[in-house]
């Protein structure tokens, strides 16, 4: 193959990759702009009934929960695959104020999150539209000031797995 042909072919592959990359970027941008429609997902839960964490999209989700100081508050929680493809998911605590003594997810037999001493991750595979049902246990220190909002952040990373 001549260099010219190779050069012409390389330019075509590069152009294709560039187009693909540009298209994905556009898709990514579009995906962060709104959550994909997924008829099988429950609607976002209001305060007092639990939370549904969407897996397989980029961006930030915000939940509001109530946990009286000194009480272990238990909330129903769902981890739902919103990617439209099989994903492998990893959930790990990012940050928690020291007043939050526990922020633990219980899914099946697994517990992860922040137990007051260390942070543990959770790894799972979810089919498209599948939700893993669990509970979130939140313990705000009994001596923490009441009527205060404490923000806890959890990182949810998902990979398309086929």
């Amino acid at each position, binding site marked *: 193959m001549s260099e010219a042909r190779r050069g012409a072919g390389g330019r075509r592959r*590069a152009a294709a990759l560039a187009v693909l990359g540009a298209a994905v970027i556009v898709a990514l941008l579009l995906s962060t702009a709104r959550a994909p429609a997924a008829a099988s997902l429950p609607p976002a839960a209001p305060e007092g009934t639990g939370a549904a964490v969407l897996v397989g999209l980029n961006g930030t989700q915000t939940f509001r929960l109530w946990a009286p100081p*000194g009480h272990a*508050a238990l909330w129903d929680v769902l981890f739902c695959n919103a*990617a439209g493809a099989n994903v492998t998911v990893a959930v790990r605590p990012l940050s928690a104020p020291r007043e939050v003594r526990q922020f633990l997810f219980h899914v099946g037999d697994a517990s992860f999150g922040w137990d007051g001493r260390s942070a543990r991750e959770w790894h799972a595979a979810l089919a498209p539209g599948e939700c893993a049902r669990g509970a979130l246990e939140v313990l705000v220190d009994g001596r923490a000031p*009441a009527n205060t909002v404490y923000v806890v952040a959890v990182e*949810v990373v998902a990979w398309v797995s086929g």
Partner: protein
Amino acid sequence: MSRAAAALLLLGAVALLASLAFLNVAQTAVNASLPPVSKRLNASLAPLAGAWWDAADGYNVTHYSMKFVPGWPELYTVGMFAPTRAGWEARLEKLAQVGTATYAIALGGVTQITESQGAGPYVAIGQNTPLDWYIYGSQRLSVLAYAWFRQGGITAIQLMNFTAEPMARLYSQTFSCPPSTHADGFSDYCTTYATGFPDASLLKFYTWSAAGGSEAYLDESFGNPKPSVYTEGKNGYGAAFVNLTRWIGGLPATGNLTVQYYLQAAITGGDYLQLNFFVDTDGDGRPDVEVVYYMSVRGREPACLSSAIYGYSITCISMLYSSQSPPIKTWLDWTVTKIYDYGTVVGLALVTYSPNGDTKSWWDNLRAVKCMLPPAVSTYVRGWQYTQVYISPSTSPTSPPSLATEVDAYGSTGSVYADWGAAVARYSLPQPVPAYSTTVSVQGRYVRDSADVQNNVAYVSIGVDTDGDGIVDREYIVYRHDVAAGQTGVIVSAFFADSSGSPLVVCTVDSSGACTPGDSRFAVINAGAMATGNNYLWSYTLYERGAVIAVALAAADASGRADGTADDFWIYWDDLTVQYSACPPPGGWGASGKYVWQSYGYLLVSGSAAAYRTLVANALTYVANFSGLGTYAVFDSSLSPIFGVSVNGSSFTALCGPSSVPLGSLPSAVWVELRPLNGLGDVIIRDQYGSVLARHGCRYAAAPQYVGFRGGLLRVYNITALG
């Protein structure tokens, strides 16, 4: 590859990677606001029960504590659950337990945790959902539990700690007092006066002789020992007069007198040896009757000497002592046991009288026994001659002296209410003694004159002050009767009189001894019949409120009178005994009112009195065992009951300030608890095992100061303070 192509390739790779991986941050805003359910203390139980919270490992731990009486079941609503938002439920789940007991913790009336139950069902939490805690144990118990709160899909868990501790005994008081006896044998009211005539200062001599030769003087040369008084009647009399008023202040005519005499030769024919007594019967100090005791073989007209000695003539009664001559040339006693029926002997003459001869005698060692009524005795007499009360130095059912009551009826109309006569000796006790479990007994000898009509009653009246005002308001009458068929006896009160001051007639007594008082102040006890010449026991044990303050010994003749001692009857009372038990209250106890004693094995609170002590520091409950009639209460500083119970036998009534709540008849009640808590007075009545028979809570605002008792008639066996 050009730089541009390389850049595009990298971008494509990134884009590929981006198309296969997603990054998502979930932010949770945790709103830490009020707990869903607040846990409150039943503050009125403080300090018996307490509640507080602290944090352990981040958890909010609510603590409930309670103290209990070891071995007795306890049940308290220690707290209340109340939701801060509507729609919550709660349940308890035991995590750990230290110590053993039988217990149950219930929420809203639904048992959650027991010694064998680990958890309970959810219970809807409304306003003031009670948290009840029952415990029956003897050692410390601590239970750690989850409190689950749920509303829809939200669940909150909190820790709760229940700790129960046995109370300690802080104070315990039992009561005891040995039995005592007040006895009076009436032997301390007689004084013996004696003289051997050491000189003639007591004497005044009188002689008379138709032809001269009678003599009377102090013989310094002879006596037992010498000197002695010599009298010789030679065709007349020789007399030595002793002014008893000057010597011993007079001698009750019912008393006795002894003098020694010595005869050189026998008295013969119409010779006399005489003791002439001059008796004042009207109390003016001058003699009204001359009583002559004499010895003479044939003479029956002894010499009367009132004119010679006092200068005026009075009734002269002669009493033949002996019609035989006594032994000669030896000193002999001459005793007159009862000189006269009444009055006071103011003078005595020792007389030798020989109207037609010569008789000589010596006299020595005059001894008079003068008896006075005890200072504790006051008398009431109504009747004909010689209705009276006196100390008899010579007659007794046991051993002389005795207290004699002699009576003849006042009239003979046939109407008992008009005719009755009575001789009453009211004996005031040195101090009031308990009327409960006190025995009064006295011996008595019954003697009636041969002419007496048998309508006689003799009785012991026990005067009781039941309400503590110091005045007799109930009279127990223990009587014996000698009432012939067709006759009627009578009992008159020793302590109650009508508006004119005349004693009330208690009842009439028929020949069977029946007496039916019409007045509830009188309680009569028929001790049986009596017959003249016999000794009897009058005895009765009281179980009455208040105190015995006096005992009366009485004789009553219903009707029929005669002069002198004819138709009279006598009761000679002796060995009056009052057996009782009375000691002051224990140290630290105060008394309001008169009649509070330790008696036998209890504290006797009687006759409207109160016995009390200050509250014991840190005490939570006061447990008492008592019986009878009265009040057990926590008092304020003015001894007004704040709360407590009144008891009448087995009937209990809870007291709460001015109000009262009947608790019913509780015959198996043994213990009564009073718990002065934080504005709550808890009254608990338990049986011997501590099981609760009745309970009443009293809200009060007063300041408790004392715990104690008020009678009625209350016997308190013990009281214990625990805390």
